C-alpha cells in the first residue's frame, strides 16, 4: 500500500530529524536531570499556597479583566467600520478591500507579545500597553472574520436595498450589519475569551495585570505567593473557558466550529 509507505517514510524521517536536532542544539543534559530535581523541589516548596497580599492580587485580577474588555471593545468598534471596507461584496472601492485585508493580516501575524513589547517600549509599562497590544492584535483577526461574515450576507438583501435607492451608509446600517449580526456577535465573544486568556499572561512582559504581579513575587522568590497567583490565574482561565463554552452552546452558533482562521 502506497499510503502506508508514505506514513512509514514520514515517521522515519521525523525520528531521524529529531536526533539531528538533538545534536544541533546545546541542550544541557546534566542540567536536565539536576534541573528537574530542583524544579520538583521548588514545586514542593510552593506548598501550601499562602503569603498573599489580597488587595494587590485583586487589583491585578481586575486590571487583567479591564485590559481585556477595553482592548477587545476598541478592536470591535474599529473592525466593524474597517470590515465594511474589507468585505469585497460591499466595499465602496475595489482596491480598498485588499489593502485593508493586507493590513489586517499583518496585524494578525505579529504575535501579541511582540505588540506588547513594542507598546511597552513606546508607551511605558502598565495597562495601557496591554490594552493597545490586545486591541491591535484583535483588530487583525476581527477585521478578517467580520469581513467574511459580511461576505456571506445573501446578495439578494444587498440587491433589494440597492433597488430602493438606499445610500451606502444606510444600506450598511439597516441591511448588511443586521444580517451578519449573529455571527459578528459570536466572533466578538470568542475574541473576548481569547483576550481574557492573554491578559492574564501579558503582564509577564510588563503590560500590567495579574501576570506582572506574579513576575514580582517570583523575582522575590516568594514561592508560596507565586503558587497562589498561579492558582488564581488557573481559576480565571478556567472560568472564562467554562462560561464561554456555555454561552456559545446556548445562544450562539459557535465560531470555533469554523475553520480557516488562525488564532494566536
Amino acid at each position, binding site marked *: 500500500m502506497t499510503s502506508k509507505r508514505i506514513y512509514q517514510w514520514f515517521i522515519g524521517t521525523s525520528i531521524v530529524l529529531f536526533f539531528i536536532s538533538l545534536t544541533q*542544539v546545546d541542550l544541557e543534559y546534566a542540567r536536565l536531570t539536576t534541573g528537574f530535581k530542583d524544579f520538583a523541589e521548588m514545586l514542593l516548596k510552593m506548598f501550601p499556597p499562602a503569603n498573599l497580599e489580597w488587595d494587590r492580587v485583586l487589583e491585578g485580577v481586575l486590571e487583567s479583566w479591564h485590559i481585556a474588555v*477595553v482592548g477587545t471593545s476598541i478592536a470591535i468598534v474599529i473592525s466593524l467600520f474597517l470590515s465594511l471596507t474589507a468585505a469585497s461584496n460591499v466595499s465602496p472601492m475595489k482596491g480598498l478591500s485588499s489593502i485593508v485585508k493586507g493590513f489586517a493580516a499583518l496585524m494578525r501575524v505579529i504575535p501579541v507579545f511582540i505588540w506588547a513589547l*513594542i507598546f511597552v517600549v513606546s508607551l511605558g509599562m502598565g495597562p495601557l500597553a496591554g490594552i493597545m497590544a490586545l486591541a491591535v492584535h484583535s483588530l487583525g483577526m476581527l477585521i478578517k472574520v467580520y469581513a467574511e461574515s459580511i461576505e456571506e450576507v445573501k446578495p439578494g438583501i444587498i440587491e433589494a436595498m440597492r433597488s430602493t435607492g438606499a445610500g451606502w451608509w444606510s444600506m450598511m446600517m439597516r441591511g448588511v450589519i443586521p444580517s451578519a449580526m449573529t455571527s459578528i456577535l459570536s466572533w466578538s465573544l470568542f475574541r473576548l475569551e481569547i483576550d481574557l486568556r492573554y491578559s492574564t499572561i501579558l503582564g509577564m512582559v510588563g503590560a500590567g495585570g495579574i501576570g506582572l504581579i506574579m513576575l514580582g513575587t517570583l523575582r522575590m522568590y516568594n514561592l508560596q505567593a507565586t503558587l497562589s497567583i498561579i492558582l488564581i490565574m488557573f481559576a480565571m482561565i478556567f472560568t472564562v473557558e467554562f462560561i464561554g463554552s456555555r454561552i456559545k452552546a446556548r445562544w450562539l452558533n459557535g465560531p470555533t466550529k469554523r475553520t480557516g482562521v488562525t488564532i494566536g
Partner: protein
Amino acid sequence: MLQLRWKNMLVITFLVSMVGWSCVASEFKPVMVITSMSDAFAYIWNDFLPPDFVNWQHMLKYLLDTIYMCYIATFISVVISLFISLCASQTTTPVKWLYPIARGIASVLRTIPSTVWVLLLVVSVGIGLTSGVLAMILAGVGWLTRAFAEVFDEMKQGQMEALRATGAGWVHVVSQGILPQSLPAILAWALYAFDNSIRDSTIIGMVGGGGIGFYLQESVKLFQFQEMTAGLVALLALIIGIEFATNMLRRKLL
C-alpha cells in the same frame, strides 16, 4: 433569541456599563486610542525602522535554535501524549481508574499557560533552551493529550472489538487496531502542534526560554530596536514558512 426589545436594551446597557467601568478603572480615555496609536507608530517609524540585519549571523543562530527547540519539544510531547492519551480516552484506557488521572494531568498542564512554566523552570533550571524545551513539552503534552484522546474517542469500534474477540491483549489491540486507524489524525495534530509551538516560542523566549524570542527581548533591552525589527521580520518569515510547509505536508498525508 434576541427578539424582545427591552431585553436587547438591557443587554446593551449592561455591556456599555461594563466597558465604561473598565475604561474608568484602567484610566483609559477613548481619545487615547488615537494618541497612543500615533505615539507608538511614530516610535516604530523613527526607532524600529528600517530593520537592521547587521548581526544576521547572531540572529540566524537564534532562529535555528527556535526551529530545533520547537521540533524537539513537539516530538517528545507527541510521544508522551500518545501514552497518556491512550489512558485518557474511555474507549482505549487499559485500566478504568487511569482515565480520570490522565484527564486531570492533561487539563492542569493545559490550563496553566506555558509562560508560567517557563518562569518557574527559569528559576530552577536556569535561563536558556533547556527551560524553553521543558516548558514547551509540558504545555504541548497538555493539549495534545486531549486532542489525541478525542481522536481515540471518535474511532470506529468494530476493528477493536474484532481484535479483542480474538483474545488479543491491550498492547496488541493498540498496536494493531488503534494506532493504524488513527494515525492520519494523530500526524495532522502533530503537525499542527509544531506549527503552534513556533508561534508560542516567541513568548517562551521572551521570558527566558531561549530562541528567537530571547533575541528580541535582548535587543530591546539593549535599545537595538532596528535589530529587533530584523529579528521580527525573520520570525514572521519563519512562522509563515512553517505554516505553509505543514499545510503542504498535511495535504500530502491525508
